């Protein structure tokens, strides 16, 4: 399973929404290919019939009473918002603006 990581870096960076400079990409490709080569060693193990472990605790799904409780004050949460306006989060336009522009 030899993978050329140069080809993959752009695709994976896009999936991760992670902007990388050209020199970062180049360095990343080399390092990731080394790391994945080591990580791939687990392919040597026979895991037929082995259940995956996603969590080590045997605690079943935890449920609680459906009770209304106070949440954190809005102003305390909003103080960390980089761009805000009257209690709203501001972001670049998301919706396709075709119909907004008459």
């Amino acid at each position, binding site marked *: *399973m030899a993978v050329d990581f140069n080809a*993959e*870096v752009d695709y*994976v*960076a896009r*999936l*991760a*929404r*992670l*902007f*990388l*400079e050209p020199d*970062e990409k180049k360095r*990343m490709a080399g*390092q*990731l290919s*080394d*790391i*994945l080569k*080591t*990580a*791939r*060693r*687990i*392919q*040597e*193990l026979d*895991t037929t019939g*082995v*259940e*995956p*472990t*996603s*969590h*080590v*605790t045997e*605690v079943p*799904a*935890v449920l*609680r009473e459906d009770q209304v409780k106070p949440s*954190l*004050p809005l102003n*305390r*949460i909003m*103080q*960390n*918002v*980089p*761009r805000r306006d009257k209690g709203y*989060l501001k*972001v*670049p*336009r*998301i919706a396709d603006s075709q119909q907004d522009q008459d």
Partner: protein
Amino acid sequence: MHLYEQTAFELSRMLNSREVSSVEVVRSFLERIDEVDPHLKAFINYTPNQALETAGEVDSKRIGGEKLPALAGVPIAVKDNISTMGLQTTCASRILENYVPPFDATVISAIKKAKMPILGKTNLDEFAMGSSTENSAFFPTHNPWNLERVPGGSSGGSVVAVAAGMAPLALGSDTGGSIRQPAAMCGMTGLRPTYGRVSRYGLIAFASSLDQIGPVSLTALDGALLMNLIAGYDPLDSTSLSDAVPDYSARLEPDLNNLRIGVIRYDQGDGFDPEVTAAVYKAASLLEEYGARVGELTLPLTDYGLSAYYLIAPSEASSNLGRYDGVRYGFSVDADSIEAMFSRTRGEGFGPEVKRRIMIGTYALSAGYYDAYYLKAMKVRTMIRSDYEEAFKKYDLLLGAASPTPAFRLGEKIEDPLQMYLSDVCNITDALAGVPSLAVPAGLHSSGLPVGLQLTARPLKEKLLFKTARFFEEHRKQVPLRPELNFLEGRGR
């Protein structure tokens, strides 16, 4: 002896008998911080006023005859990935540089309730990803035993704070060795509790199935006293265990009779320093001499564990760190499109190691690779758990090294991520299995740097770890093991 040289237990005794006030104790640590932290760089933020305020409150309550918790007035340092309400919590990342949590982590609520003054927030590898504290976006932390050496990581700041007398206790976090490996490299005692024993609520998530908060201390007793405060069920953490919490500090006298100890035999190809291996066998003989039954075992999946860990942890990280998008908190780059805003914010806000792990994790979880990488790694994790279950049928405790070598040089491994990952080889399988594991100092290497042992027990057997650590303390020349800070000698010249 200065107050800042005392253990937490001794400070607690002195405070309770009113030999000293908490304000005096806190001042002693604050002065020590002023004196040594410019050289060591253990703290990202200091909170002297808040610490003195809590101390003053404790002192007036004590004078008023109020009954106070055991560690009331004993100060503590906190790793900067643990949320503190109203106090910057940065994860040593640009992306959270100005983030102020709107709530306290459950462990912070616990230490506040216990009236422990918080001295500040300590340095770490960015988002706890690293083994040397060099991945901090702000500055590296130096090892007090030798300033040219790393303190280990990622909880390097917390460990150095305790080792250098800047705090008698600290909170760290351990995902794959981040408490135990630095504790070993600085001669401290550091516990990774059983997964689920200490609430993760408010610990900024790196790899949720592995992250645990734990104590860093000078002695086993001090660590046990802190565990008394932070262990227990928390409805705010759905992975938290509801099992009863023992009194960790009560009756810590070691009893080795018929205790079955398994010494972990490592493949010497793993880069083990011969003196580290010798220290492990010396410790085993000592245990045997005092009544323990000692055998040897191998954990044959250790190397595969490292591979599985470096798929599982980055996979979880890539998902957990998806929240840093510049919208709700933290660093943010404005752009024309939302996708450009996300990508630029993350590209400029994260450092190289965090980016690497996000990339590995995203890759391992992506369509076409999920089964071969992430799913396979989770199956290997099951096999590792079975290895431990088998080992614990024969042994009550496993004994090994907490780090394959003493502290390495600053800069030595930073350009080679794989070599850096290998420095956690002793710590990772315990984390994957979710079992408790303790780093205990074993004395000094011929280089003058500390060497650490690692003791591992069945789930929820933290107390057995502390008791055995106590046994080693009784047979060590110097307790606590402290560096002489040579850089202070040149003052005034």
